[in-house]
């Protein structure tokens, strides 16, 4: 599987990015009214790195990931994606979003379009790729996530796991350098979880940069280069998966791991 996903890796390595960090966040703060959702977040994600964000619900993981592609506006601090500074200007936002693919907890497929049309939609509208070519690209990625036979079905006719894999294919079609996953398996039944995690693990082998919010600790341990623990809008602890799980240094992370493992 990792072999067939390799052209994603090609698009990664062929880009002349050197050792530039994929995502660079400094001094990030975000408020919802008076609620301080993100406090002084600093996070560097190297190109090709797999970072897992974990923490209790309400800790700001999703908010952080959504700030990176401007689904949420940050109030202070800086975000750079592939060296592009994220401002409130629409063309900066669009430039940043071209670097990023996003997978949501609830799939967010376009319900009135077939699986194939879901994938070709942005190729045609945002990338101005002709119908035939767009369909070829879409079919290629649908095959990679094992839903090629469902191409002409509507999302409602697919299982949750299949829908989420379509959502991953839809994002990959646009050849993003960085993939953001916002609890991609939280809305799935246990059987489907595996099928989605396998795709994500294969994807991780391709050299793409990944930032995943997930409660799948097994996945984090196997796949993550670095785990980041957040609580109450702060990054409490971050480190390589082994140290993170086996010898956490903060009390708060130890308490969290006691609960979830």
């Amino acid at each position, binding site marked *: 599987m990792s072999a067939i996903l390799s052209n994603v890796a090609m698009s990664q390595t062929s880009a002349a990015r050197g050792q530039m960090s994929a995502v660079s966040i400094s001094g990030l703060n975000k408020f919802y009214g008076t609620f301080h959702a993100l406090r002084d977040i600093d996070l560097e994600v190297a190109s090709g790195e797999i970072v897992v964000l974990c923490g209790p619900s309400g800790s700001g993981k999703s908010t952080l990931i959504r700030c990176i*592609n401007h*689904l949420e506006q940050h109030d202070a601090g800086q975000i750079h994606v592939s060296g592009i500074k994220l401002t409130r200007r*629409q063309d900066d936002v*669009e430039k940043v*979003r*071209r670097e*990023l*693919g*996003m997978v*949501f907890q*609830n799939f*967010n*497929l*376009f*319900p*009135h*379009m077939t699986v194939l049309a879901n994938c070709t*939609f*942005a190729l045609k*509208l*945002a*990338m101005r790729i002709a119908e035939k070519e767009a369909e070829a690209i879409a079919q290629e990625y649908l095959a990679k996530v094992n839903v090629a036979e469902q191409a002409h079905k*509507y*999302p*409602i*006719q697919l299982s949750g796991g299949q829908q989420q894999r379509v*959502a991953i294919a*839809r*994002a990959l079609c*646009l050849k993003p350098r960085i993939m953001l996953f916002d609890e991609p398996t939280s809305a799935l039944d246990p059987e489907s979880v595996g099928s989605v995690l396998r795709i994500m693990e294969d994807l991780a082998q391709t050299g793409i940069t990944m930032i995943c919010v997930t409660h799948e600790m097994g996945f984090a341990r196997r796949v993550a280069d670095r785990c980041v623990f957040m609580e109450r809008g702060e990054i409490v602890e971050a480190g390589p998966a082994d140290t993170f799980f086996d010898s956490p240094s903060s009390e708060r992370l130890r308490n969290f791991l006691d609960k979830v493992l």
Partner: protein
Amino acid sequence: MHFDPQVAWDSLPKLLAGTLTTFTVLLPVLVLGLLLALPIALARFKPGPRSVLAAAYIGFFRGVPSLVLLYLIYSGLPQFSLVRETFLWNVFSNAYVCAWIGLALTHSGFMAEIIRGGLAAVPQGTLEAAATLGLKPRQILFRLRLPMAARYVLRAYQNELLIMVKSTAAVSAITLVDLTAAANTVFDYTYDPFTPLMTAAAIYWCITNGIRLAFSAADRKFNRYLVRA
């Protein structure tokens, strides 16, 4: 009181001419109403003075009876010399134009609310997904949000359309002889109220059923995605 087939047959040319008038009034009203409704509905989404104006527009034109509106436009406006003595007179002396404007204003008030409801029902996550895929706000609106909203409001639009078909009868108040008015003139010279009005009702029934079939077909085509099997 009985139905006289001979009277029905003889009155058919008049009733069909009335039907033509009904459609001549109706079709521009539907187009004009929709074109007016869309920006009004969109204006309701962004808080501010434009939203307040749009709300006032909707409140006014849904509130005023269309018959009153037709009288105001056809008989009321010419009271102003500005209307009577300028090019506006070419516009407002024509009963069809007055009917189009009056009914389109009413129709647009209702349509704006239907469209607003449809747009509001599109899940936020779907719109976010489109944004993360690199679509521009305008593309998201016209290529995703409106097409989804149109599917949601198909049945509500069918209701509004059926109501409009029958509300066009109000135009007889400003001299136009639509289907209902035509039936009434047949009654005037035959002294048979039953036959022409029942015939007119049958023609309305045919029109509304044609619309029903068209909407069923549209529903099957555009809302296939809701069927699991």
